[in-house]
């Protein structure tokens, strides 16, 4: 069937594109991390995936940015190697706004690599309480080289693990589709009393449970790198584990009946009930508690800033691919159950 080929093709595409496309150049860290007002410093910037030697030193511009209109431009830029670049800064004696310290962003503009930014990279400490814009202005951050190529965004904290977006998130989409299919067949069973519908509902639930486990495992792998530990009692982790328990209970319920019709009817009822309880578990309760997941405040999914167009080109095909694979798995499980019936002469 065409959709099985499509699912395999899309998954292969998601795995190859997801793993092979490089990240955009970024800044890992800068040194020193603290500067004082009025100081002359040499700032060393350590890049990631960067090719600083591909341009002349005077073409590379480095800023220490205070806000939209205030920044200091680095002088005497020197390239040490592909991932290290230096520039000297004359720090102003005052700060544009009141305060004793400020976190400055580091921005590097490179004609080949494009722009890279490290937010709040350098702490600027003030000796006086003077508010002056002297030295901050006349360094407009403009004429930036915006490079459009095939690469994924560079994000601090998650780095290369951003690729997990293509495997972790589609699991939940596939799970939702599988459980939706399962609940539709359960409703159909209650109307038709046809055992085939029940078998399809079970097959979908099995596929959905598999995706749930995979989603949990990929999520734990990701959490291990991004949050520091595989299981951090994040409310979404907990609720997902509970949701999977609901469906494990479904299988125990099925196996505790002697007559197949009775078991099918009651487990169909429980399946509808379980699906309805999945909605508060996955979409209402997580909003009430703080979560480490992106977009935790108010929204269960991630925000629009977390995906760029290159990522969308892999993300959406991956969702379709894994969902179709789930459909295929469910079909195989359904046929297996049918063959078992023939073998044991139940039909």
């Amino acid at each position, binding site marked *: 069937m065409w959709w099985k080929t499509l699912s395999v093709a899309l998954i292969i595409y998601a795995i190859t594109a997801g793993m092979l496309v490089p990240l955009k150049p970024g800044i890992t860290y800068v040194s020193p991390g603290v500067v004082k007002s009025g100081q002359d410093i040499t700032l060393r910037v350590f890049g990631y995936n960067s090719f600083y030697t591909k341009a002349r030193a005077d073409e590379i511009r480095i800023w220490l940015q205070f806000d939209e209109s205030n920044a200091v431009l680095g002088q005497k830029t020197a390239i040490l190697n592909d991932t290290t670049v230096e520039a000297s800064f004359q720090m102003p004696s005052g700060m544009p706004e009141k305060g004793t310290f400020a976190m400055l962003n580091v921005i590097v503009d490179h004609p080949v690599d494009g722009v890279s930014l490290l937010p709040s990279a350098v702490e600027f400490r003030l000796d006086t309480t003077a508010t002056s814009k002297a030295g901050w202005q006349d360094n407009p951050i403009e004429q930036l080289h915006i490079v459009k190529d095939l690469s994924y965004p560079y994000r601090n904290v998650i780095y290369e693990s951003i690729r997990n977006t293509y495997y972790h998130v589609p699991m939940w989409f596939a799970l939702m589709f599988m459980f939706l299919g399962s609940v539709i067949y359960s409703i159909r069973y209650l109307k038709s009393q046809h055992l085939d519908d029940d078998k399809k509902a079970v097959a979908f639930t099995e596929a959905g449970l598999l995706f749930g486990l995979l989603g949990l495992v990929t999520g734990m792998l990701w959490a291990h790198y991004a949050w520091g530990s595989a299981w951090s009692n994040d409310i979404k982790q907990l609720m997902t584990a509970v949701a999977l328990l609901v469906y494990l209970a479904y299988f125990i319920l099925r196996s505790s009946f002697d007559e197949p019709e009775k078991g099918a009817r009651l487990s*169909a009822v429980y399946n509808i009930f379980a699906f309805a309880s999945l909605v508060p578990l996955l979409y209402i*309760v997580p909003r009430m508690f703080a979560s480490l997941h992106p977009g935790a405040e108010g929204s269960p999914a991630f925000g629009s800033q977390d995906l760029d167009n290159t990522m969308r080109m892999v993300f959406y095909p991956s969702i379709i691919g894994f969902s179709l694979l789930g459909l295929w798995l469910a079909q195989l499980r359904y046929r297996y159950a049918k063959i078992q019936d023939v073998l044991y002469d139940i039909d």
Partner: protein
Amino acid sequence: MQALPLFFTLLRKEFVIEFRQRYAISGIFLYVFSMVFVVYTASIKVQPQVWNILFWLIVLFASINAVVKSFVQESGARQLYYYQLVDPVILVLAKIVYNTILLLVLSLLAFGAYSVVAGNPVKDMKLFAIVVLLGSLGFGIAFTFIASIAAKANNSATLMAILSFPVIIPIILTLLRLSAISLRLIQDTSYKRDIINLLAIDTILIALTFILFPFIWRD
């Protein structure tokens, strides 16, 4: 019979059965008191945080034990008799109302006994009363529905626990949060949203029960 008189007749029947089989209800009450006493002997000085969690655990376990008999205690022959006479929705509604009242009494008794032995850290009595009422309602609806499924299976006591716990978690998390607010353990002025969440969950559960119960009870 009209729907309303039928409902009251069925509700009365539940009370009469309970009154005739006093050992069941006495057993549950004794169960609550034993649990409270276990908590007391295990930890003499109960911190408000622990008080909150333990109170709801006692109510949760007592509720499961109180509701599980709801469908098991009536024989198959009598179920068949009801099947010919009454509308399943009214029957299950009577059971839900009865179980909610039972659980409310149970939680109030548990609260009384618990505050005697472990002290009463509740600061906002009005809110706490609302929380207990909402808790009894939520448990009453969810456990009645699960008990009706579990009663049909072979190992109903185990199934009751397995099937109900995952479903009850959103309810009990919200209850714990609300009751922590009434104990002034956390400050939150927007707790009305939690109450609305709880009522929304209750509404979903009761709607599902009305739709699905007719499929459960006929054999």
